[in-house]
């Protein structure tokens, strides 16, 4: 027979204002396993915690139910308090009677009180069946893998390397630098992009803790947070001494994915003459012209005197192209105009746009500068067609502000094409088990509060692979990803909740149903015994295998079918 104590928190009036705490106490007191029941104004306060500790000692409790707020608030608090007086924290359960009872049922105190009683009773049943457990301790390989050698990957690699941890930086192409190497000047201060980039590339190459493999890709990934094994292969003869096509197995504890973006293929924009007319270029082609101080028409090498920029080329077009806004184009177009006018002072710039998105400190002023000091003509409207006309290009569009259709003759057209995930992102995501969204960008763990973490523990995201972002945002996000790696590596080992699946070997027939159903790849068939195994580091305690197992050979610690049935019995 268990000796369980039940403690009901008033949470000021948050709970007691709705739930009749006295009745909850009375209702659980006659449960045969409950030997102690008490209430208090604020159990999370120091006197509240002492009250629980005293009862554990004097009443020799071997299980505790705290009926209070959500376990995400104070489960750790009460667990620590219990452990201080030698009660295993896994013999303590939280009954959430605030977020799940008193708050949603504020206007129905009677129903709320009945529900609180039921919630507490089910947890009394659960805690009677709980085993004493200890957190699992897992080793950590304190070495990071960074995939992608653009500004995001290099920044993350340097931050991790500077903190003293070894980093393997893998880049698919044969050089570091990514798209930033194609840039001329950077907004807002028009710094020369290649100078800043060169410093960073040199820092990476000279760093004692950063090993660089160019011409190399990640082909497979096994393991879990703290203990990954990546297979990387040099598909091209690069500057490594590896033979072409050799696969290396690399042990790493954390991974930063920084695979960047590509531009939407111009060939898919025939209405804009993409890939049809030589003087229709995409924004990175134009950027390279600016960088090389060679603003010339590809067709005849003439200096273009009238240039049209077409914004949202392939973006914000859910019917035919990408539904999303590519975020970075409005600002780089303004910058390209300023750089173009510096190169070609007599030149005239036109921009077709839907909305001008220049958000944040100094950005709107920068676009204003392009308009006012560089005489750029911004036309609000979509371009319908671009066609050659007498050695130049005719751009037909509408100006939605005056309500007219317009035709602009241009020497050169620059398409601000949509930013899309770089080729191979989807494939890499599959191989690393990172999730992607409907547009193929890698998914962050939470859109608000966990922007640099992926949904897989130990895999972090930096830069354009998560969504288009400009250089300042990319760099700070890459450092953010590095912070997560440093946070992980600061510990000698990781702890993991022990409430994971386990196997009763005698009952297992080795049918493999659990292996198929497990969404976390935590179940495998034993290499030679005819049974399934559990990798506790990967198990997320979802219970899918428990439900699927035809022989009832699988269960989950502290969530056994027996416990769940007893909990159900308590309320029906």
């Amino acid at each position: 027979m268990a000796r369980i104590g039940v403690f009901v928190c008033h949470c000021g009036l948050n709970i007691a204002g709705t739930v009749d705490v006295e009745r909850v106490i009375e209702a659980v007191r006659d449960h045969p396993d409950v030997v102690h029941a008490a209430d208090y104004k604020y159990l999370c306060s120091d006197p509240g915690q002492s009250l629980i500790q005293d009862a554990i000692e004097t009443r020799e409790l071997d299980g505790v139910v705290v009926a209070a707020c959500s376990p995400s608030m104070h489960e750790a608090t009460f667990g620590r308090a219990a452990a201080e007086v030698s009660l295993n924290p896994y013999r303590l359960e939280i009954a959430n009677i605030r977020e799940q009872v008193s708050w949603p049922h504020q206007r129905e105190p009677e129903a709320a009180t009945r529900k609180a009683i039921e919630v507490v009773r089910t947890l009394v049943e659960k805690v009677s069946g709980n085993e004493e457990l200890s957190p699992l301790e897992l080793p950590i390989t304190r070495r990071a893998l960074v995939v992608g050698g653009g500004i995001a990957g290099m920044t993350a690699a340097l931050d991790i390397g500077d903190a003293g941890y070894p980093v393997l930086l893998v880049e698919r192409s044969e050089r570091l630098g990514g798209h930033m190497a194609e840039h001329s000047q950077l907004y807002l201060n028009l710094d020369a992009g290649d100078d800043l980039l060169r410093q960073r590339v040199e820092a990476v190459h000279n760093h004692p803790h950063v090993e660089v493999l160019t011409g190399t890709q990640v082909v497979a990934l096994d393991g879990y947070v703290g203990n990954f094994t990546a297979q990387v292969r040099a598909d091209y003869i690069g500057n490594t001494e590896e033979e072409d096509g050799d696969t290396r197995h690399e042990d790493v504890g954390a991974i930063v994915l920084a695979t960047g973006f590509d531009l939407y293929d111009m060939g898919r924009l025939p209405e804009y003459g993409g890939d049809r007319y030589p003087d229709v270029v995409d924004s990175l082609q134009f950027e390279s012209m600016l960088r090389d101080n060679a603003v010339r028409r590809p067709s005849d090498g003439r200096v273009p005197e009238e240039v049209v920029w077409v914004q949202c080329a392939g973006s914000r077009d859910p019917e035919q192209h990408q539904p999303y806004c590519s975020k970075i184009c409005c600002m780089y177009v303004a910058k390209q105009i300023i750089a173009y006018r510096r190169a070609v002072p007599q030149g005239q710039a036109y921009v077709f746009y839907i909305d001008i998105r220049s958000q944040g400190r100094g950005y709107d002023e920068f676009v204003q500068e392009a308009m006012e000091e560089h005489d750029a003509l911004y036309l609000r409207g979509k371009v319908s067609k671009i066609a050659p006309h007498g050695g130049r290009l005719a751009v037909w569009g509408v100006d939605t502000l005056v309500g007219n259709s317009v035709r602009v003759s241009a020497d050169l057209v620059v398409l601000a094409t949509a930013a899309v995930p770089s080729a191979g992102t989807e494939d890499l995501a599959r191989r690393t088990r990172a999730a992607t969204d409907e547009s193929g960008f890698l998914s962050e763990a939470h859109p608000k509060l966990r922007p640099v973490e992926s949904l897989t523990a130990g895999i972090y995201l930096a830069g354009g692979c998560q969504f288009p972002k400009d250089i300042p945002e990319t760099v700070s996000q890459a450092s953010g990803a590095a912070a997560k790696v440093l946070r992980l590596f600061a510990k000698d080992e990781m702890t993991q909740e022990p409430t994971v699946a386990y196997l009763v070997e005698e009952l297992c027939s080795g049918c493999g149903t659990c292996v198929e159903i497990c969404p976390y790849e935590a179940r495998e068939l034993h290499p030679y015994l005819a049974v399934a195994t559990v990798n506790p580091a990967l198990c997320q305690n979802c219970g899918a295998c428990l439900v699927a197992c035809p022989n009832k050979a699988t269960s989950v610690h502290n969530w056994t079918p027996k416990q769940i049935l007893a909990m159900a019995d308590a309320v029906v």
Partner: protein
Amino acid sequence: MSDKKPVSNDTPAQRVLIIGAGIAGMQAALDIADAGHEVLLVERLPSIGGRMAQLSETFPTLDCAQCILTPRTVEVGHHEQIQLLTHAEIESIEGEVGDFRVRIRRRAAYVDWDLCTGCGLCQEKCPGRALSDFERGTGERAAIYTLSPQAVPNKPIIDREHCIHFLRDRCGACAKLCPVGAIDFEQQDAFVEADCDAIILATGYDIYGLDRMAEYGGGKIPDVIDALAFERLLSSSGPTAGQVRRPSDGRVPSEVVFIQCAGSRDPQKHLSYCSKVCCMVAAKQATLYRHRVHNGQAYVFYIDIRAAGKGYDEFTQRAMEDEQVVYVRGKVSRLFRDSDRVLVMGADTLTNRQVQIAADLVVVAPALRSHPETVRLAQMLSLPTDRHGWLLPLNENVHPVETSRPGVFLAGTGTGPMDIPETVAHASGAAAQVLKLFANPCRQR
């Protein structure tokens, strides 16, 4: 495996001072504290959470702000490596990286927080009343109060301006009722001195007040409120429990006009920059309004719709299509009270017509501006700001969280308007720079 040896993890713990405990300061604090270093987190207000604690639901997923924020405030409050000093201000900072000396003024709460259990009895019984800043004037609070029921720390302060004891030397209800004798009317400001090795400024933003905008009634028309006040009306923990009721008469508004760029993008009269977050806030608020008031009609006056972010443009499209929010491209020229409604006059620059809407409620999206506290600290630390008072990083592009001063880093909206995910990533970026610094012990430099 690499043949390079990993560093040992037993370098001595060092300490960072983080100024500001909004979502940026908290994120940086957790990243650094979880890596084993000490954090001294100083917050001007009595409890942590910053602006995010005032928000109802967040775009584009409509997660409840309180629900995702509270676990984080609690984690900060409980973290063994984080020392929290709230209701406190920086008096002075001297020294340099690895050896900063900081003096902090802990303002008198008139409550002994060591004794207080946070039972809330004093707030319940206090007869003093004042408009709540946290509720942005849409609700009242007692003279002894916490910012919200989920406050961390959950300890009240007494507002002398509205406390009957301080005003008229009577009452003292709180002192009589407090079960632990925590009320201390004689309490004085206290001073704390601390050494730290690095500093993160996470001071956040302020709101450009309606009182500066005569064109929108200057704050004198009760049913013209700012977007943060509307957040409180939408919030289930706000003064109306999440029901949209207008301030003047408590009626549910059936036509609501949202005015964008109030004080932003207006170099002649107000501020030249775009405040970045307002377009998404308006799309969210219009959507939430329609969720609460199904037959309600929302209008948004805008210059450009700036929905640049993952799922943002799609979210705004849904507001237009699914919630039938009418977007009018143009500026509002003026508005005035017309019996019990507010007449909004503006131009639709797409049809080139004048538009006039009789609204029950007008929600103005005020500019975000640099907080005066940011400017004061920038001066104290000799850090550059732009002409609007936003902190400037060492290099816009490649050093977005570093400053010209070694050991001093920036996190979040003290550097300019940002939304929450950008703020959080930026703050983690600042944490990385501190962790990097601490891996190479500063005192040996």
